[in-house]
């Protein structure tokens, strides 16, 4: 990936990924909501060796701007061969259970806006018959659990959407890489008590990029989550529904 669009560039995992891409001398088009923070990430990337850095502050929940945003990225970098889609919110499960508005907000940011952007991007990449779409989903999307099924639903829907997209784009030489991190020590999880399963954003970023380089399909980062989720997925629903997860 030499010309990369990064969506949600101020998120911790995206920032760590941006640093690795910058060190490789990639050209970057960074998108985030907060202009000041986005500028800080852009300057950091430029100083660390990115060939070119452009940035655009927009709210990705505004689907109407997606088409123009992608156009802008293609023009600014003279084409795109990679996308890292990293924007998302954790939401508050308890709040989401009380209020449809809160549930809808999580689904809108994590799934609908991603699906909208990927629709535009997939068509472009399909037409140019090249490129890598890297999308951050989550282990939470592998099975619904009472503690965070709204977030889990948004990521599960995203994972299924990506499976279909991968199937469709395989013949067009476009790689669709689904990255499923476990717990990551980021501002999104700052309020949670930390344990040994928490990985640093840097570690997730390295896993993400090596999966992108290898054009893998679905990866868990760190890898231990493949085993954990295999176990969790294999529990029969009749048992699972009684567990406190």
């Amino acid at each position: 990936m030499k010309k990369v669009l990064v969506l949600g560039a101020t998120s911790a995992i995206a920032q760590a990924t941006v640093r690795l891409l910058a060190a490789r001398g990639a050209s970057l088009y960074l998108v985030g909501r907060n202009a000041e923070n986005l500028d800080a990430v852009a300057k950091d990337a430029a100083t660390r060796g990115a060939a070119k850095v452009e940035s655009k502050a927009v709210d990705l929940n505004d689907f109407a701007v997606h088409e123009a945003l992608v156009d802008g990225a293609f023009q600014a970098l003279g084409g795109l061969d990679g996308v890292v889609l990293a924007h998302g919110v954790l939401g508050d499960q308890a709040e989401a259970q009380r209020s449809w508005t809160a549930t809808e907000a999580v689904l809108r940011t994590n799934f609908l806006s991603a699906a909208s952007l990927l629709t535009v991007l997939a068509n472009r990449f399909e037409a140019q018959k090249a490129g890598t779409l890297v999308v951050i989903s989550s282990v939470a999307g592998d099975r619904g659990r009472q503690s965070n099924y709204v977030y889990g639903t948004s990521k599960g829907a995203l994972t299924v959407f990506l499976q279909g997209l991968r199937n469709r784009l395989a013949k067009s030489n476009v790689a669709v890489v689904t990255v499923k991190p476990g717990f990551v020590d980021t501002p999104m999880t700052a309020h949670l008590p930390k344990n040994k399963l928490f990985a640093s954003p840097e570690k997730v970023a390295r896993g993400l990029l090596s999966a992108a380089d290898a054009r893998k399909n679905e990866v868990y980062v760190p890898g231990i989550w493949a085993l954990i989720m295999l176990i969790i997925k294999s529990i029969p629903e009749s048992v699972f529904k009684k567990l406190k997860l």
Partner: protein
Amino acid sequence: MKSLESWGRYPQVEQRTQALTWRSDALPQVSGSVLPHGLGRSYGDSCLNGGGTLLLTSGLDKLIAFDAATGVVRCEAGVTLDTLLRLAAPRGWFLPVTPGTKYVTVGGAIANDVHGKNHHRGGTFGRYVRRFELVRSDGSRRVCAPDENPDWYGATIGGLGLTGLVTWAEVQLKPISNPYVLQETVPFGNLDEFLVVARESEADHEFTMAWVDCLARGKKVGRGLLYRGNFAPPQFDGLPLAKSHLSHGIGLAVPMDMPAFCLNRLSVSAFNWLYFHRQNGKPKQRLTHYDPFFYPLDAIYAWNRIYGSRGFLQFQCVVPYSTARDALKDILERSSRGGLPSFLSVLKTFGDLPSPGWMSFPRQGVTLAMDFANRGEKTYRLVEELDRVTREAGGAVYPAKDARMSPESFAEYFPRRAEFAGYIDPAFSSSFWRRMNPVAMPFSLESERASGAPHPKSLLALR
């Protein structure tokens, strides 16, 4: 709550933490006092805030700009010296001043106005800080430079993180033409010889420092090895120019706290003897990459764990040349007599280049750094004695390495502390600062005045 300790792991305190992420954010609103905390490489309690909150700056780790033509780098305060080296060294620039570890943040280097092997030539880190932003709890933001808010600039350099949060800083790097250092080792038999060799070496060498055998007694007190060096010239001996960033440590780690019995008089004695006799008494010259030359201990991750869970106390003083010989002899003999071996002791001369920082520690003379495994009261008493000897010799003790100096000593070491106190942010404090400024009841102040007792100096800084 994350349990955070200082590098010496003594004292242990309970405190809350709050991670910082963006330099443009306002300071977090918390109850109680706050203190910026980078990588916690200060040894004692100057990087701790018992009962309060530590503002963790390691998330403020973004670079802002680097000009490879002028060597000026601008970065956030949580950026480590390691990061700056990885950025700058391959492009022919180096830190103007570096302490013995690269795992400190730029903010920490400013707050402690750190020094290195080139103090006699280059002075302290603060001299190369062109400007920085200081954020106060009242929401104000100031750019501080020698010609812009110079008082805030002077108070913050060496100001132990108490004047507010430094969010970013601009540092002038220095050019090098080779990542290798041409290093020479010269043995010396005692303190007098050290003083001669050290002064002599300053003329032709940018870097000097000496390891001292702290267990030698009698005539051999102060024997050791002096390391001196300069960055090698370009293409020295056919070596390539600074292109790669080689030898990032040797990947050793201390995986757990070592039991206390590993470190005793015999083992330290053996280590010191071997270290000294490796040399055969002759000067030796060799070419060393800057990494092992400046950061030998960084190669062993978490080396502080060799002291076990009780940790250790570091002691670093500087004494003027006029009293250096006797005071250092006294200090070395006391620590040797005390039966509390110092694993690694370092001697170095400081030059007379002034620091912009009001509370800066380095001043002209000879500095000695030692570390002592924490054996409780016995160790505390020894370090307190060494503090007293230093004060009597007209010297100073380094707050970044201290856990035991007295408020009275602090007052003598840092004559500008009262002026400095006026610049402390009302929401900021540290365990060290409170130890140096014990709050006294007004009535005890009155009674001391009535009895004609001298006004305790530490109260001058009482806020």
